[in-house]
């Protein structure tokens, strides 16, 4: 454990060095993320100029769905950004070098590019989540906050599983860049309360592509509008999904044949 913490810290230091040497790029990316975040907040605010509820949720509750989506999205990008380089590593044969290192190749591939700008971006998101939760009377209890935090943790486990599956798919199908981007696009489903979708769509995005489980369940747990069965489902699903993703990664590694190096 200590070894992997040291490795993660060292990889993060190297990544930060990269960012400072490409200051224009990363400043632009950071501003772009702020612009995107700000525009969606303006959109939600604009929608509520014409209505007082969205699928039965108030403005602050709708904003909390959006902020929770952002928290999970930004966390996953900050911690697992290395996955976006993985395809290139496979194509160029660089993954051979990763396999020769005395570190788990999956850990190295996922965490080699910790995005400090996203970690910084988490600060205003957390502040806004606190402010929004404060504005919702139903959330002024320790149990709500603990349920929210617990479900967020389970959501991150599922997100980790998705990234591992993406890495596995990349080994099988080298040109599969759009797999991880499909996940990113699917995550946008979580920007709004799930009740806006038809029931079959809600089921698909709860069980098959578990976006609602990842993003909406924390908010619904905090608001206590979800029953215990679904919370138990989320716990079992997260554990099984992670196990499945690790199994697929193991199978993918066995199939890996180097392009060149």
């Amino acid at each position, binding site marked *: 454990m200590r070894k992997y913490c040291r490795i993660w810290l060292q990889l993060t230091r190297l990544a930060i060095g990269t960012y400072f040497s490409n200051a224009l790029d990363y400043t632009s990316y950071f501003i772009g993320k702020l612009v995107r975040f700000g525009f969606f907040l303006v*959109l939600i605010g604009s929608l509520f100029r*014409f209505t007082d509820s969205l699928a039965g949720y108030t403005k602050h509750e709708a904003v909390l769905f959006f902020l929770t989506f952002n928290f999970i999205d930004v966390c996953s990008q900050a911690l697992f950004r290395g996955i976006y380089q993985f395809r290139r590593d496979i194509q160029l044969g660089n993954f051979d070098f990763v396999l020769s290192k005395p570190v788990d190749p999956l850990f190295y591939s996922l965490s080699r590019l910790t995005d400090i700008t996203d970690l910084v971006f988490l600060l205003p998101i957390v502040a806004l989540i606190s402010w929004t939760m404060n504005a919702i009377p139903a959330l002024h209890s320790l149990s709500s906050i603990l349920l929210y935090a617990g479900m967020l943790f389970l959501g991150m486990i599922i997100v980790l599983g998705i990234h591992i599956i993406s890495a596995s798919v990349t080994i099988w199908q080298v040109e*599969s860049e759009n797999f991880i981007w499909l996940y990113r696009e699917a995550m946008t489903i979580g920007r709004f309360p799930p009740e806006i979708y038809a029931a079959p769509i809600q089921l698909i995005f709860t069980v098959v592509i578990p976006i609602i489980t990842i993003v909406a369940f924390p908010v619904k747990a905090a608001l206590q509008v979800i029953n215990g069965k679904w919370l138990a489902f989320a716990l079992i699903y997260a554990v099984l999904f992670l196990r499945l993703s690790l199994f697929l990664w193991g199978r993918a590694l066995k199939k890996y044949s180097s392009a060149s190096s």
Partner: protein
Amino acid sequence: MMLCGKYGAVFLISWQRELEYRFNFVLGRLRNIVTMLLLYFVWVSLTEKTGTFAGYSRAELITYVFGINILRSLILGTQSKQVVVDINEGMFSAYLVMPMSHVLRAFFSELAQRSISFLTAIAEVALFALLLGVTFFVQRDGLLALLFLVSLAMAVALFFALSYLISLLAFWSREALGPRFLFDWVLEFASGAYFPLDILPASVLALVKALPFAGIMYLPLQIYLGRVGPGGAVTGILLQLFWTGITSLIILVAWKRGLRRYTGEGM
């Protein structure tokens, strides 16, 4: 004939390249379907009580959502992003010795990509319209339909010009992908790709309309939906022409100056 031959070949080669990795292509289309469905359900939910929202009928909003999916496939290409990579990695040198204009080569390459996306977007919209049982707004005014097509052609030219110009930043900086990302997101929102811009507060709307991006998707769809009369449509088209002209002039200047700086490093 020579013009069609050269650029026709670029078009065909780019078309084939787009279909080379079919799994990746299908995943890319699924991304657009997800965005389309998300927006569809948001607007359906908002129009559930009264059948209207912010002065739009449900049919208009749904037409806007599905129309955006088709327009996005036709207008928003990604090939001009490759210009950044080509300049930074020295591959751009190969294009300089080709007997063709790089701008036109990039345009036809992007056109090939957009043609494939357009055909699949039509199929997606038709399929989901059937599955969801939606009612579209159909523009029956011939003049507005014609003005819509003119505006659409101008939007294609305007987006390409803006996108190509941003990519030329690579002549001055190896860090051009970051500004490109910022441009893409400002464009996504300010062009009306997610929602009709007139639901924004008046002050924000005025700011957005002062930018050229509103002419890329918002204006053509407003003309199609008849929310802008022929006079307003012509004014909008003239604005698109103005912005395309200004951007093209800047491209000419940037191209000349950029080439003087270009060193072809990385080859």
